[in-house]
């Protein structure tokens, strides 16, 4: 059990929770994640550790409500407990001085970008960050990202804030004008794919943080397998961070859709139940 100490709504459907989990906080490193479960009937879902404080024993998770489990998580309040909170899982990123690192965070992917930018900044890297969202209201942690970046660019798809367009166009511009030693990208798979396509001709090493479907998160089931450089890897133990130039993104995109129908059904049922519950409370 892990208690929720603080809850914040960062954007519509994007929530932050500070969770009391000293066993995770003590060991956490940038790049790692937790697996949590909310109810006895619930799924085990992975979420990146967005920040952690070993002294206070707390971990921050930031999640987008996309389906039943994340929506249910969103209904928990300060003082409530998360049933299972396992971690830290996965491998940490290599923390050393690469030189000039560009960190690209898209959508809720801004959250997992932060600890990586922070850790690499502490190692003396020059950090350029590009964060983007669909629209102004969906953007969060601009200030926190600025703190750990030497330079920060912001984009929105609809131009309601920052530069109009995608994070990738800023990245292209930077690659044309400056020497970049490493690019780290976290966000929707399609964005990570595009980033890798763009950096390839410039020969810039590119790390992406993959988010396939998982069950155990400990290397026992093989659900999270991805093809990297023609080899089968388990994201939960070999990753989640991989060389973007070697990842088979199309396979990952297909594998993320395996349970689309079931997810839809679970969500509909849950929404109906919730509506009934609310109706009975009114009566």
């Amino acid at each position, binding site marked *: 059990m892990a208690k929720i100490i603080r809850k914040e709504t960062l954007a519509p459907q994007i929530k932050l929770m500070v969770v009391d989990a000293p066993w995770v906080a003590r060991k956490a490193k940038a790049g790692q994640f937790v697996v949590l479960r909310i109810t006895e009937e619930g799924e085990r879902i992975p979420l990146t550790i967005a920040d952690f404080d070993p002294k206070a024993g707390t971990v921050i998770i930031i999640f987008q409500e996309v389906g039943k*489990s994340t929506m249910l998580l969103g209904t928990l309040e300060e003082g409530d407990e998360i049933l*299972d909170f396992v971690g830290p899982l996965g491998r940490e990123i290599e923390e050393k001085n690469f030189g000039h690192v560009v960190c690209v965070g898209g959508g809720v992917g801004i959250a997992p970008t932060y600890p990586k930018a922070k850790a690499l900044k502490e190692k003396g890297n020059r950090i350029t960050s590009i964060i983007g969202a669909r629209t102004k209201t969906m953007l969060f942690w601009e200030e926190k990202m600025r703190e750990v970046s030497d330079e920060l660019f912001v984009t929105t798809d609809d131009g309601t804030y920052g530069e109009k367009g995608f994070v990738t166009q800023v990245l292209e511009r930077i690659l044309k004008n400056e020497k970049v030693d490493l690019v780290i990208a976290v966000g929707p798979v399609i964005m990570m794919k595009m980033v890798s396509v763009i950096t390839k001709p410039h020969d810039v090493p590119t790390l992406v943080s993959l988010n396939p479907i998982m069950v155990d998160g400990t*290397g026992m089931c093989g659900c999270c397998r991805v093809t990297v450089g023609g080899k089968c890897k388990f994201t939960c133990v070999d990753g989640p961070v991989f060389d973007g130039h070697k990842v088979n993104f199309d396979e990952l995109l297909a594998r993320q859709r395996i349970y689309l129908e079931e997810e839809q059904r679970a969500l509909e049922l849950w929404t109906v139940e919730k509506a009934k519950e609310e109706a009975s409370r009114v009566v």
Partner: protein
Amino acid sequence: MPQRPPEERIRDFYEVPLGLSEWAAVEEAKRCLKCKTPQCVKGCPVEIDIPGFIELLAQGNFDEAIVKIKEKNNLPAICGRVCPQEDQCEVQCVLGKKGQPIAIGYLERFLADYEREKGVRSPSLPHSRNRKVAVIGSGPAGLTCAGDLAKMGYRVTIFEALHAPGGVLIYGIPEFRLPKAIVAQEVHYVQSLGVEIQLSRVIGKTYTLDDLRDAGYEAFFIGTGAGLPYFLEIPGENLNGVYSANEFLTRSNLMKAYLFPKFDTPVKIGRRVAVIGGGNVAMDSARTALRLGAEEVCLVYRRTKKEMPARVEEVERAEEEGVNCIILTNPVRFVGNENGWVTGIECIQMELGEPDESGRRRPVPVPGSEFVIPIDTVVVAIGQGPNPLFLESVPGLNLNRKGYIVADPETGATNLRGVFAGGDIVTGAATVISAMGAGKKAARAIERFLEAPDSFPQWR
């Protein structure tokens, strides 16, 4: 033992064998010869006093009979269901030489079920020795080691990566062979002996062995099992609809996908399902697929039925339920559609050649015999190996060529001082009872280590 008819049982996940009646159990027990040097006991890795409990049972003294079993075995309801008694105690029974051996397994199950219905009693055991032992993994090896150490008076904590204790008993073996409520009850019994279980703690990640040492643990038992699923490593294996047996069974058992959407974790089951392999895990996967609603389930195996590693009883049950065995056939490639879903398996015919190192005749492909089996779901059940996650976190631990821990077969001692190991992580995929036997031996050795550390010359 009476069992439910196949038509009925493939529609649900309830248990298949129904258990013996009181009358039948007593009559069976009465056949025992109470041999002076009972052969059956030699076949039991946890050393149950078999004639002892059978005699009490024959007298109708069920309460003491189960106490007799539990002197040695903390998990009788589990062992009575899944132990391969035909290769263990029953194969040794003198009555088997001429006729039928005593049905030792059925009797064990009968007594465990009798006790469960009455409400399990726990002995009260104060912590007489204030020293801490850490057990990593809550499978049968870990549970046995922990239970025995607790009975000796030590303070034992089990650390388990998953959110439920039991290892393969809870995530692998299906409900219809081993009801999870029974596993939960026997785990509860081990806890009642004084064992603390910390769930959702991945050793190697959440804590390292050094962290545990700093927290005051003086000896360690590693029972992390062989949980890494092997794949065929052929093209198309990452197509949607291709599962490892571990994922398929974990979704169904641990996550209760057969109760979706009451439970949130789904599992995909097509009309036609193929299971690759011929072991117990393959049988469990095939029978689970049927119960999840598959119309046709076939088993693709590269040798013949004679070479199948599964228990004969399990193959028979699977076939009774309608599983179709396609033998002397090996997959070479998975075929998929444009959306990334598997639609077929390209296979090649095999024939048996010379025996290989396992003593079984080696299957050899017949050139030009490729053909495609159309399917919607595949379960790859070709074996498991050691999961490196924990092992990588213990530098210097001796592993063998295949990645398993090297441990003394009599004590479980590894090359690291105070660190013992047993079960599948040492032997490779084996049986519940052999894992329990290893846990038992290690418990005894851990006591020796704690009381007389110098009696392990290799660590001096």
